[in-house]
């Protein structure tokens, strides 16, 4: 189909040449023969550009699989997913990737707990309540904030949120001791902890969630809202029982995207979450995520080609698989949503 268009545009030229004068015939056929190779070449050049993206995906998969293959020859999958400890550089080494996955999801879940409801509420405000003027100011500001680099949030997590949490916990200690009746209770929050990374990631993904949710809320046809008002519903009932359910697949897609972003987030956890992989649900402890581990090894002096170095490709493969699954879920939800109101 792509090749047809330039061709069809030349058919009348060739056909009309016979009836038109010879001058027209000469110039038209000249330009026709001159154009054709260029058109074909451009088609292939553009196709090649599009193919670059396919090569990128295959490149990522090929690199992750081939580079982690030697690792998986050494360490069985059962050991990789079965062991409880992750200490590939120790002697004896442990390769239990679950503690990294646990750290990743502890941080991501903590972030989601803040950012998803807050983002949705902000989106409801922007889409249902805000005056056009307020929205025209707030939406661009939100989009602007989505462009703050993650290393800035990492700095903020380590140097603002963590001290704040430490001070807060300290001032709460007497109350906690009284409530629990245990005078020896001294809850501590480590300098590197999952919670401050979670909060920073939540602040980072909040504009993303709010902006994407607002987009899907606004696409909901006006007639649905009007119908609900006509039945006597209040504004809250319209928002929560009509508009949000109607936009649910779009909202879910943005939620999944935000969680996938949180899972893949690197700089914040590298700076603030620490480097002690463990299976825990306590957000006050130091943990390590998959991305944090990859950064740690790539910054260290682990010799290339050693099994310790190959672990980053194995962990990268797990990370890639998890995020791809989430992205595909999000993409299919968006598609479903588009069909609904197009």
């Amino acid at each position, binding site marked *: *189909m*792509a090749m047809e*268009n*330039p061709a069809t*545009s030349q058919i009348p030229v060739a056909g009309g040449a016979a009836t038109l004068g010879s001058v027209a015939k000469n110039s038209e056929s000249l330009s026709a023969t001159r*154009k054709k190779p260029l*058109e074909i070449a451009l088609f292939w050049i*553009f*196709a*090649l*550009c*599009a193919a670059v*993206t396919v090569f*990128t*995906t295959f*490149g990522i998969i090929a690199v*992750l699989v081939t580079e982690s293959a030697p690792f998986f020859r050494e360490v069985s999958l059962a050991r990789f997913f079965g062991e409880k400890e992750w200490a590939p550089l120790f002697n004896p080494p442990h390769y239990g990737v679950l503690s990294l996955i646990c750290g990743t999801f502890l941080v991501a879940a903590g972030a989601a707990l803040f950012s998803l409801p*807050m983002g949705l*509420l*902000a989106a409801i*405000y922007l889409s249902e309540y805000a005056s056009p003027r307020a929205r025209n100011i*707030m939406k*661009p500001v939100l989009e*602007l*904030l989505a*462009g*703050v*680099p993650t*290393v*800035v949030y*990492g*700095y*903020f997590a380590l140097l603002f949120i963590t001290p704040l949490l430490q001070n807060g916990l300290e001032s709460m200690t007497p109350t906690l001791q009284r409530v629990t009746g245990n005078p020896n209770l001294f809850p501590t929050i480590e300098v590197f902890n999952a919670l401050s990374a979670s909060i920073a990631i939540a*602040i980072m993904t*909040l504009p993303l969630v709010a902006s994407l949710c607002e987009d899907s809320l606004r696409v909901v046809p006006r007639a649905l809202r009007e119908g609900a008002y006509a039945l*006597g519903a*209040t*504004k809250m*009932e319209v*928002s*929560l029982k009509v508009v949000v359910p109607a936009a649910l697949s779009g909202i879910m897609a943005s939620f999944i995207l935000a969680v*996938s972003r949180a899972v*893949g987030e*690197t*700089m914040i956890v*590298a*700076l603030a979450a620490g480097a002690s992989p463990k299976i825990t649900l306590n957000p006050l402890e130091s943990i390590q995520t998959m*991305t944090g581990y*990859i*950064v740690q090894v*790539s*910054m260290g002096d682990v010799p290339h080609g050693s099994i310790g170095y190959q672990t980053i*490709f194995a962990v*990268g493969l797990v*990370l890639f698989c998890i*995020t791809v699954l989430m*992205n*595909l879920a*999000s*993409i299919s939800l968006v598609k479903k949503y588009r069909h609904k109101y197009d």
Partner: protein
Amino acid sequence: MATAPAPLPDSPSPVPPKYQPLASSSTHLRRRKLASTLFYLLCFGVTLLSFFLLAWIMSGIFKQGIPYLNQQFLTSFPSRFAEQAGIKSALYGSVYVLCVTAVFAIPVGIGAAIFLQEYAGDNRFARFVQVNIANLAGVPSIVYGILGLALFVRALGFERSVLSGGLTLGLLVLPIIIIATQEALRGVPNSLRHGSYALGASKWQTIRRQVLPIAMPGILTGIILSISRAMGETAPLIMMGALTYVAFVPRGLRDGFTTLPIQVFNWTSRPQVEFQAIAAAGIIVLMTVLLSLNALAIFLRYRYNSRL
């Protein structure tokens, strides 16, 4: 809301359904209205809170970094001593890397978008490429770092150079440019294409003279956003081993480099308070550039969106 109790199936009652007493219904209504107002306040509060959080971050960082932000900071190389350290090599490194990124990603991204939007139509290959691009946009940046490490640094032998870094970031932002360009091309009315064909223009003439000029603001927005994204990226470059002490300005594509976010990360991860303060100064420089770029992009988008 006044609800009629459903009549039981076994006793069809001739009595009309009972309505709730008026008084109770009005308190019910009042409660619903109150809930609605509270909900509005909640939404508004959360929105305000999110803006407040961001204002808090900015002001905190500004307070820390402003005292260190002077000409010496901009024109010195990094140093063991915080007072003498600067971001000269990081600024130059960022510019060099971004040039490579732009030269690679802008033409390829626009080309890919033209292919998908103007040539490919709706076949299986195009749909696959489309899903693939949407997925690539969500792949963690550190995974691109792994790809860059294996492909550019090692397999192609570019070492830890400006070229490797720029190409890696180029692959990273390619989906952003493609998606934005496609969006812009989709916004060009088909009547313009048909009119151009009717005048005897070829496909490429139509794209170049009719479609691209109209789509330009949208494409430009995508390009600016992608450059600013590339400028703030840290993880893939660290992955490639760019976190080293660089006290020189790169002279060519094969030279080593450091960038602004890498320098910020480096200083932040040190325990000394002075280094954390100059990290804040670095952040101010980085954010000034990024936020101006993004503001420009958003301004362009809103301006031209409202016109079409």
